[in-house]
C-alpha cells in the first residue's frame, strides 16, 4: 500500500482464516470428506441433520486441530463445543456446531518472513456448512429465482484461525496468509487451496491517525477468493474509510462484501446480518480434553516449520533471516538444496542466489521440480571453481532443472568444455593481432577498450571463455 493514498493514516488489519481439514471423513459422521464429488452424494442422517441423528467427534480432526495449534505456538486446552443458532438453508440443523468461549487452541503467534510476529487469538474447531448456488437475483438468496444446495461440504471439519489486529498493510496481510498457508500445508492438516475454498479469508480493516495506538471502528470484509483480491480489498476499504473520516463522517461497524468485478466493498443488507446467535453449550457432545501425552506426541511429530527453515537457510548461507531470497527458497521448498550445498562444504551463498533467482523463476513457469541435490551441488562447484562461466552455469542449470541429468554431461553437450589457459592465451593473441590500432590505444592507457577486447574474445571462443580470466590476461599482456 502506498503511503500517499493514506497520508496521515495507518491501516490496521486482523484476519479470520477458515481452513478445511484434510481428514478422511467429516467432523461428526463417517461421510467422506472430498472436494468435487457429485452434489449430495457424501451425506448421511448426521450431516443432513435428520431428526434423531447425533454428532460424534472425529479424532483425526482433533489431532489436526492440535497440530495447527502447536504449529502456531498456541496453548492447547480443555475445550467444549457450542451451538451457533441461525437459519440458513446451507445449514441442515439451522445451527452450526462450533467452539465459543473455550476454544481448543488459544494465545499463539505466527512469524512472518520479515521476522515480525502476528498474534493468534485462537484456532478453534467447527463444522462447515453446505454450499448454496443462488440462481437469479444477482447471486444472493433474497431475490433468487431458486437456490441449489450441496450438502457434501456440510460437516466438513474446519479450523478457524483468528489473528490479532497486528498487520499494518495489505502486503503484510498477504504475507500472513501466505505464511499461514505454508504452515497449514506443512502440518498436513490442510491442503490450503484458496481456489477450492479449503482456505477462506475474512479480514477486519480499520484505520487510525499515524502515531495513534487506539483502534478505530472496523469493518469485516468477506468474499475474497485469492490473495490478490485480499490485497485489493484491504487497499480499497482503507481508502474508503479515509474518505469517510476525512469528510467528517464516521465508520459504521458492519460486514462488507468484496465485489471482485467492480473492485469495491459493499455493505451487506442488515436483514442478512442482524444475528443473535444464541450460543449455548452443545448438549449432544461431551467436553474435549486431550491428554498432555497426546498433545506432546502430536507436537513431536510436527515437521520443521517454515520460520525455522528460514532461520537454518539464512544461517547456512550467511545472510539475514528476513531476506527475500531466503523466504523465496523456503516458500518453494528448495531449502534442502541449500542445506545439501552446506553439507558438501560448497558455496551456499551462490547456491541460494541461483535457487532464489534462476530456479525460482523457472519453477514459476513450469511448476514442477525434482532436483537431485548431489548433482545440484556439483553444478554449484563447477561455477564456483571457474569450470563454467556464470552465463554457462545458468544455461546448464536451466536444462538440469527442466530435464535432470548430470551437469558435467550437460555442459559437455552444450560445448561448455572448460577452456584451458593455453587455449585462452591463443585466443587472446589472435584477437590482439587482428585489432592492432585498438591494442595500441589500450596499451597507451585507454582502459575503456578492455570491454572491446573481452567481447572479441568471447565471440572468438563462442562464449566458452571465462571472461574474468580473459580480462586478467589482457591486462597482464599490456603491462608486459
Amino acid at each position, binding site marked *: 500500500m502506498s503511503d500517499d493514498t493514506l497520508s496521515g493514516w495507518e491501516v490496521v488489519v486482523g484476519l479470520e482464516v477458515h481452513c478445511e481439514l484434510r481428514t478422511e471423513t467429516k467432523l461428526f459422521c463417517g461421510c467422506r470428506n472430498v472436494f468435487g464429488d457429485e452434489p449430495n452424494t457424501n451425506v448421511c*442422517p448426521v450431516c*443432513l*441433520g*435428520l*431428526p*434423531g*441423528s*447425533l*454428532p*460424534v*467427534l472425529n479424532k483425526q480432526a482433533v489431532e489436526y486441530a492440535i497440530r495447527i495449534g502447536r504449529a502456531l505456538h498456541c496453548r492447547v486446552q480443555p475445550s467444549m463445543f457450542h*451451538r451457533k*443458532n441461525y*437459519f440458513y*438453508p446451507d445449514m*441442515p*440443523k*439451522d*445451527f452450526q456446531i462450533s467452539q465459543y468461549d473455550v476454544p481448543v487452541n488459544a494465545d499463539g503467534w505466527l512469524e512472518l518472513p520479515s521476522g515480525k510476529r502476528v498474534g493468534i487469538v485462537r484456532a478453534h474447531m467447527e463444522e462447515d456448512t453446505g454450499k448454496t448456488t443462488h440462481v437469479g437475483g444477482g447471486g444472493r*438468496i*433474497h*431475490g433468487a429465482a431458486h*437456490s441449489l*444446495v450441496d450438502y457434501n461440504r456440510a460437516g466438513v471439519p474446519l479450523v478457524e484461525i483468528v489473528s490479532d489486529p497486528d498487520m499494518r498493510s495489505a502486503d503484510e496481510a498477504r504475507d500472513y496468509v501466505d505464511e499461514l498457508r505454508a504452515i497449514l500445508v506443512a502440518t498436513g492438516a490442510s491442503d490450503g487451496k484458496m481456489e477450492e475454498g479449503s482456505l477462506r479469508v475474512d479480514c477486519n480493516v480499520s484505520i487510525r491517525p499515524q502515531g495513534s495506538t487506539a483502534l478505530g471502528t472496523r469493518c469485516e470484509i468477506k468474499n475474497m477468493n485469492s490473495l490478490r483480491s485480499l490485497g485489493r480489498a484491504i487497499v480499497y476499504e482503507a481508502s474508503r474509510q479515509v474518505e469517510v473520516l476525512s469528510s467528517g463522517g464516521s465508520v459504521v461497524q458492519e460486514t462488507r462484501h468484496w465485489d471482485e468485478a467492480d473492485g469495491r466493498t459493499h455493505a451487506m443488507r442488515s*436483514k442478512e446480518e442482524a444475528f*443473535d446467535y*444464541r*450460543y*449455548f453449550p452443545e*448438549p*449432544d*457432545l*461431551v467436553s474435549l480434553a486431550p491428554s498432555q501425552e497426546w498433545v506432546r506426541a502430536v507436537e513431536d511429530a510436527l515437521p520443521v516449520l517454515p520460520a525455522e527453515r528460514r532461520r537454518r537457510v539464512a544461517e547456512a548461507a550467511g545472510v539475514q533471516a528476513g531476506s527475500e531470497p531466503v523466504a523465496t527458497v523456503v516458500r518453494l521448498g528448495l531449502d534442502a538444496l541449500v542445506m545439501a550445498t552446506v553439507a558438501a562444504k560448497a558455496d551456499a551463498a551462490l547456491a541460494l542466489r541461483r535457487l532464489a533467482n534462476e530456479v525460482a523463476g523457472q519453477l514459476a513457469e513450469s511448476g514442477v521440480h525434482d532436483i537431485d541435490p548431489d548433482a545440484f551441488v556439483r553444478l554449484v562447484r563447477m561455477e564456483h571453481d571457474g569450470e563454467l562461466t556464470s552465463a554457462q552455469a545458468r544455461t546448464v542449470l536451466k536444462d538440469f532443472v527442466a530435464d535432470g541429468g548430470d551437469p558435467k554431461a550437460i555442459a559437455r553437450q552444450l560445448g561448455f568444455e572448460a577452456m584451458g589457459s593455453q587455449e585462452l592465451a591463443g585466443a587472446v593473441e589472435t584477437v590482439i593481432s587482428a585489432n592492432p590500432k585498438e591494442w595500441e590505444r589500450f596499451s597507451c592507457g585507454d582502459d575503456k577498450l578492455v570491454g572491446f577486447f573481452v567481447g572479441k574474445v568471447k565471440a572468438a571462443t563462442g562464449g566458452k571463455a571465462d571472461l574474468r580470466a580473459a580480462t586478467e590476461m589482457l591486462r597482464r599482456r599490456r603491462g608486459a
Partner: protein
Amino acid sequence: MSGPVHAIAADVRSGRRSAAEVLEEHLGRIAEREGSVHAFNLVTADAARQRAEQLDRAVAAGGDPGPLAGVPVALKDLICTRGVPTTCSSRILEGWVPPYDATVVSRLAGAGAVFVGKANMDEFAMGSSTEHSAFGPTRNPHDLARVPGGSSGGSAAAVAAGFAAASLGSDTGGSIRQPAALCGVVGVKPTYGLVSRYGLVAFASSLDQIGPFATTVADAALVLDAIAGHDPRDSTSLPDERAAAGSRLGRGAQGLRVGVIAELAGAEGISADVAARVNEAAEALAAAGAKVEEVSVPSVVYGLSAYYMIAPAEASSNLARYDGVRYGLRKPGADITDMYVATRSAGFGPEVKRRIMLGTYALSAGYYDAYYGKAQKVRTLIIRDFEAAYRSYDVLLSPTSPTTAFELGAKTSDPLTMYLNDVCTIPSNLAGHPAASVPFGTGDDGLPVGVQVLAPALGEPVMFQVAEVLEAAAPSSGGAA
C-alpha cells in the same frame, strides 16, 4: 410377579405358543378398542405379522430369537423407524420417512420383539396429557373421558389397554412416569446415558431419555436390559460397566434405607389421596424391613422453574431444522424468510410454538446469564442435594403425579397448571438420575395412582428391587383397564 413379557418370550422361545398367535391376540384388542383409545398414530399390522411369522420359522428351525421373542411392542412416534413414518405427532414432519432405525429399535429387533405400531404423543413430547397431538388426543383406557397423561400417553395407554405387552416412551421431564402413573402401569426413566438417544427425535437433548412401559416391574427391567448399553453413535452414552437393571430383583427390602422426599410428598397441589398412597407405600416398605424416613432435598422445589428454562432453550435449537428446506412440510413464501415463517407457523402447534419462543428468549443476548445460566446453576444445586441424600439413603420416594388422571380439556387453557404435573418428576431429569413409577392403589375417583422410586445415577438395580416390593404390596389398581 414376572409378567406377560416374560411369559410371552418363554412361550415363543419354547414353541408353546407362536409369535403369530400372540400378535393376533393383541391386534384383536386393538381392533376392538383402538377406535376409542387412539393410542397409535400408525398400527403396523402387516409388517408385524410378517415379522411374527419369521420368528416362528426361526423357532421351528431350532433358533432362539432372543429374550423378547415374539413380544408385541409399541414405539413412541418420535423413535425413528426405517421405512415407517415417524411424525412426533406434528404436521411439520408430514411425509417424512426415516431412512434409518434408532439404536433402541435395532436392539429390540435383535432381542426378538415384534413392533405393532407408532404410539401417539404430545407434539414433540411437549405436554402432559397427549392432548397436544396434531392427530387428536389419546384417551385413558381406565376412563375414556380422561387423559392418559403425557407426553408418552399413547405408549402408556397401549400397554394399559393390552395393545402391546410393553412399549417405549421418552422422558424429558416426566413423560414416561406421569402417564405410567395415570394409566396404572410401570414406567421407567433410566439414568441419562444408559440408553442410546441415537434415533430419538430430540426435544431437550440434555434431559431426554428413552425408557420402557410394562405391566410389571420385572417386565420393565427385562425390556430396559434389552435396550441399555453403550452406543458409539451417541457421545453421551455411558460405558458398559454396570450391573443389569434386573440384577437385584427378588431380594426384598430388608435393610434398605428409604427417604421420602419432604418437599415433594407434601408439596402444594399434591392431592390428599395421592399423598395417602405415598404414605402407605412408605409403610409397606417399612413393613418389608426397610428403614424409612422423611428426608429434605431443598432445591427440588426450584426444579420446575429451571426445567422451563433449559428444556425450551434446547428445544428452540433442536426444532430449528424443521424449516421446510429438506423434508416434511413446506409452505411456499415470497422468499426464504417468508417460507420459513409460513412453514413453521402452519407446521407447529401452539404448545410447541410457546416453548420455542420461551427458549429463544431465554438464550437471547443479554438474557442468557439471568435465565439459562441461572437454571444450570439450579441444576447443579439439585445434583448436590441429591448426592447428599444418597449418602444416607439407597432410594428416595415421592408421588409421581400430583393427581390421578384428569378430564380432557381440564388443563389445556392454562399452560402453567399443566406444567405443574411434572413437579415431582423433573428433578430426576435435571440430575440425570433414574426414577420409576409403580402403580400403588387408586385415588378417591377409583383411578390409578403411581408412586415414584428415585435412585442415584446407575442405581437401576436397587430402584427395581424396591419397585418390585411396592408392586407386591400394592392394593389393587382397579383391575385391568
